[in-house]
């Protein structure tokens, strides 16, 4: 029986002694196609993230974006003050436009030249940190008609540290945890992936806590929900919706804060 060390040595040797072809003709083809391949200008929403979404999700996202822009624009034009609630000691605080405060982390939309952020919009950059608490990783077998599936189950890893945001109410100490299941078919093909995460941000005025989830299905359909965070302390009565965006940080988020006390609960009687 081989040892782990033997296996590592053999695998490394196997990978390194394989033949390496030159990529010259691939490169030639690519350079020939540059004339007919325009660059995509910078946008706030990364193209790859959008392209991985299902048609339904794209429609929903586009619809939601239109609704957000219409509501925000109307509120801005009509001089309403209930978007971008400023921190206050009172839950029913008077409301003003949020002011970006940390120039070190510019708003993606502003930096990309797409347009000024709407009132209440902010950007969060959480740098990479070592885990505060190591979680567990285990492999399980799940019965499947075409052969047992393997599930890699990750639970309980938590990261913590300090971070900055363009809105000071979202700067402070963060605690981020992530759980995930990765299903692999007996054939070795990807089965599905599902994960859930929670983020808590604390500072001297209060805290925010929320969670989200994502799933990748075997046919390539995938999607991530935003983090919906509710305020505590002086932020009580506020809700922030944070979207995942591409960027240089461990967690890159753009969000908008508004005055929902909590996500609404559907009525169950007339």
């Amino acid at each position, binding site marked *: 029986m081989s040892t782990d060390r033997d296996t590592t040595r053999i695998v490394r040797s196997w990978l390194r002694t394989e033949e390496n*072809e030159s990529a010259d003709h691939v490169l030639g083809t690519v350079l020939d196609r540059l004339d007919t391949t325009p660059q995509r200008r910078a946008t706030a929403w990364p193209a790859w993230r959008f392209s991985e979404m299902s048609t339904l999700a794209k429609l929903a996202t586009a619809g939601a974006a239109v609704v957000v822009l219409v509501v925000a624009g109307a509120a801005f034009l009509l001089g309403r003050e209930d978007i971008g609630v400023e921190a206050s000691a009172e839950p029913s605080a008077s409301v003003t436009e949020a002011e970006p405060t940390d120039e070190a982390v510019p708003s993606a939309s502003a930096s990309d030249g797409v347009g000024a952020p709407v009132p209440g919009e902010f950007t969060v950059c959480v740098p990479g940190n070592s*885990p505060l608490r190591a979680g567990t990783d285990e492999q399980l077998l799940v019965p499947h008609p075409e052969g047992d599936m393997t599930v890699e189950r990750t639970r309980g890893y938590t990261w913590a540290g300090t971070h900055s945001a363009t809105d000071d109410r979202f700067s402070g100490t963060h605690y981020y945890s992530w759980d995930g299941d990765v299903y692999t078919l007996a054939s070795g093909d990807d089965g599905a992936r599902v994960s859930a995460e929670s983020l808590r941000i604390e500072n001297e005025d209060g805290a925010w806590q929320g969670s989200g989830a994502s799933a990748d299905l075997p046919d390539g359909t995938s999607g991530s929900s935003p983090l919906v965070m509710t305020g505590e302390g002086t932020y009580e009565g506020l809700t922030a919706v944070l979207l995942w965006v591409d960027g240089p940080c461990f967690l890159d988020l753009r969000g908008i804060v508004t005055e929902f006390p909590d996500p609404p609960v559907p009525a169950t009687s007339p």
Partner: protein
Amino acid sequence: MDTDLVVRAQRGDREAYADLAFCIADRFLAVARRILRDIDLAEDATQQALLSIWQDLPQLRDPARFEAWSYRILLRACYAEGRKQRRWAPNLRLLPADEPTRGDGMSSVVDRDQLEGGFRRLSFDHRAVVVLHHYLDLPIDRVAELLGIPVGTAHSRLHYAMRGLRAALDADARSTTQEAAR
């Protein structure tokens, strides 16, 4: 990587992009081939990745992060190519049967066959971790960063993959022992 080249390529400078692509193309092809186990698929993935890099460069906000960003694009291209061909055609480069035993840990052609079979049974996620760690020599936290996954998950995938490859090698050792005993 020269960030000045990246910035110039972001602004549409084709010469800068060509220099950038020249620096990474061979390594991209080598990584793609090792993950996909097929040179044609690897070339398609490399080509698609290089074109995507050109198209999406203006969206890269931090040019200093070009390397990690570009590897993520390559890995996505590998996944996409791999999905196109769920059933793998054999692509073994069999060595002569009388090839002497090597002193570098590759004891036999049989080892290669077993590793090839074991590796093909791994998912792309697992293959990517093995190739980035054992071929490119990247530490596991860097692998996690490139793949956009927690370090614990990268460790877990590497452990699972190596266990599978070890099982493939051990299966061969068992069958050889049984044949010798007959």
